[in-house]
């Protein structure tokens, strides 16, 4: 799960203190009520590429910086996602 340092500007790692946990910020997550729905989204030809990591059976992480694209694709596919800003 621990991400490698990516291209310049896309990710920055700032060591802070030793507490045995890594904080991942500015993530776009998809959360569904049933795991079958997430399976369906991952299998979708337009939505699949935008979902990069499945964190649990009901939560997945989307590609960084492509949140708007993801929302548009979900709406186009007939979903009505509830948008939650932190």
């Amino acid at each position, binding site marked *: 799960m621990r991400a490698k340092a990516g291209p310049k500007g896309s990710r*920055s790692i700032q060591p802070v*203190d030793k507490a045995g946990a890594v904080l991942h910020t500015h993530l776009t*997550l998809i959360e*569904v009520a049933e795991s079958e729905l997430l399976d369906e989204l991952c299998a979708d030809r337009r939505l699949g590429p935008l979902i990069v990591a499945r964190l649990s*059976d009901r939560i997945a992480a989307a590609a960084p910086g492509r949140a708007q694209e993801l929302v548009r694709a979900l709406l186009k596919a007939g979903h*009505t996602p509830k948008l939650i800003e932190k």
Partner: protein
Amino acid sequence: MSYWRTPSLQTIEASLPSLDVYLKALTADKLKKLARRWVGKESYKLNKESAFLAARKAWGDACAMRKLADDLSDFERAGLGLIKLRGGRAAYTEDLAGELLLLGLPFKGLNDAYGRFSGYDSAHFSGVNALLETGLLMRVDGYGYPIDRYYPALAVFANAALLAGIEPLPPKPLAIQPATEGSAVVIKRPGELLLTFVSLARALGKIGGVTLSAKGLRTKPGLTKLAKALGFKAEPADKSPTPLADPLGFYLSLWEAAGLFQLDPLGRTLNLKQTEADELIARPYPEQAKTWAKAYRSLYGWIECEPEPFYLYDDHELQPSKLNALRGALLLGLAALPDPNAWYRIQDLSDALYRRIGNHLCLGYSSSFHAPYKTPADQIPALKKKWEEERHQAWRKREGVWIARAIAGPLFHLGLADLAHAEGSKAELADLFRLTEGGRAATSGLFRPEAKPAAPPAPMQPCWVVQPNFEIILYLEQASPKQLNFIERLAERRQVGEATAVYRLTREATYQALESGMAADSLLQTLERSCRHPLPENVARTLADWAARRERLSVRLNARILEFDQNAARDAALATGQLRGTAVGERLVLVSALGRGFRPQATIAYEPPLQQCLAVRETGEVAIDVGSRDLLIKGELAAYCEAIANDSARVTRASVQQAVERGYSANEILSRLSRRARLALPPLLGCAIRAWAGGRAAPGPLAVPTVPILMVTDRDVAEAIAASPSFKPYLVNRLGSQAFLVKAGLAEEITAKLLEFGFAVGNEFMPGVRVPEAIE
């Protein structure tokens, strides 16, 4: 940045010139005229300084101002009253000029050629100039000369203490007879108007404002998007009996003039002031009408029509023009109708306005009467009469047409006038008009404020019917702004008639309503409460389904996930309350809040890359690429660079040290700079920034010692010295074939030794000697 946008009166009032600035700009002659109000005729004997002091003293004295208010002529009092009615102490020059002429009160310069010296299109400023001349008004630019086309002033202002003692005076009634009520009366219902305003506010909120070009004009793509959201269609206005050319342009200009837009800092978008707009729309219509009439008077960037011959300067799209003078005169003319409740012929109003202002204000060329040379005196009256008739006909063709279009267009669509056709009339446009309740409040009502307390807002009443096919029939007359706002958010508008509007409930519209913050349960309750019949069961069930469907899938933006090494560590952290959140899968927590003392081992930010728009040179110069710069770059650079010009900056020792004092580290500066630079940073600049920042990141020490070098012209001598044991103690090493590095501190000793062996020793660099390039 747009190069010009007319500021609002509030903005103008916030930056008015001081009295000293204004008085100092006046000539001695004008100062003495001004001082005459308080000093009397003796003022003409004062020198400029004394006149300045006398005027300044009186201007700051509230008692002197009250006395001055009592001594004013009717024209002066009415003129200042017009400014007071605007709610402040400033007025746009153009619309005030039209109003002053319409007052119908005599003033100095009304009947002579004063004001025409700089051209026919400046004659309408004669009323404003009469007030400027006496010092009762001042130009906002602080200059002291009269206003004309060549020395324009956007606005004028008056002394606040003087205005406090002024009661607005109505204009002299127009000489116009009421007409009998006509047929085919057309009435703009307030509900229809309200719907236009509510839908405009909603569309602007949804789209995010009006985009502007670099010149400050509204861009076509932005307008097309807005027109689509509003359902406005591009139809030729001439075909309508109530013509409103470019309705979207009209409403946008109107709202801008009403102060409902705010220009963004870059000057490229007009953003709606949503709260102010909602608050204004929610007021009873007669109250709203006052704001809309005021805004109509000073709007620019839109015109009613262009009757021939008609000439308008290009700047009418960006600032008030002579059209505003005519609008001001027209609105004040409506306030001067003998009976505000009666029907009048539009033609009669136009003629009455001609008689009142036609000598000074017209949209085209205004000729002056000059009898031909050597015309017998007895023929001159006949010639003059003929000339006057021609001029009147020209007014009817130009200003008369404009007035008819203004009444049948904007004034009708703003709910200020009802229209009708006279008996037997076959004209396309209505030829009779009558002021509505809102029209009376916005014109004659301004001079007759009613003491009646404001009526409490009427309780909301059921105003729509929801049909099983998901269509909603809305009865405009009964709908309140709140109900209209609700239905505009929840459903898609399909059709608008005179009395009703038809909406359709769709999944998309309902989703947008829920996304905009409407709660699912209140949605159903509000829909049911304002419904005249019980909500059809299928509609209620489907709406509940749509709302529930949204709950099934969420997208969290800017979410935080905490990753632990082990499940146990995660559970312990959650149990101790160090963080709040939801456990996700294995070892992860979706964080809602982190405790203050909790320090993660590392932070990984999944931020999108920012624009790389900098070119950085070794000397520290940073050039911003104008084509790809973003909003943040200048602010970012300001944190650790010195600004050189608009699009360039420089990293210097001082700028880095200041940044360090504010908490930046060398690594932070380098990371920010390299993240925004198009190419890799020059390594030397990296070292320099570390060195300037000091601390642990600073590079290690360097030294530039002065070491003696022995240079030998003769190669054989060089070989001999290299092989000599006598010279070995003095030398460190050989540099190339003809030079030696001498040990520090032994330069004098080796020189003595060389002299001892008979060599001629100097201390100048010898260019002919072969030494390594590095030494050269």
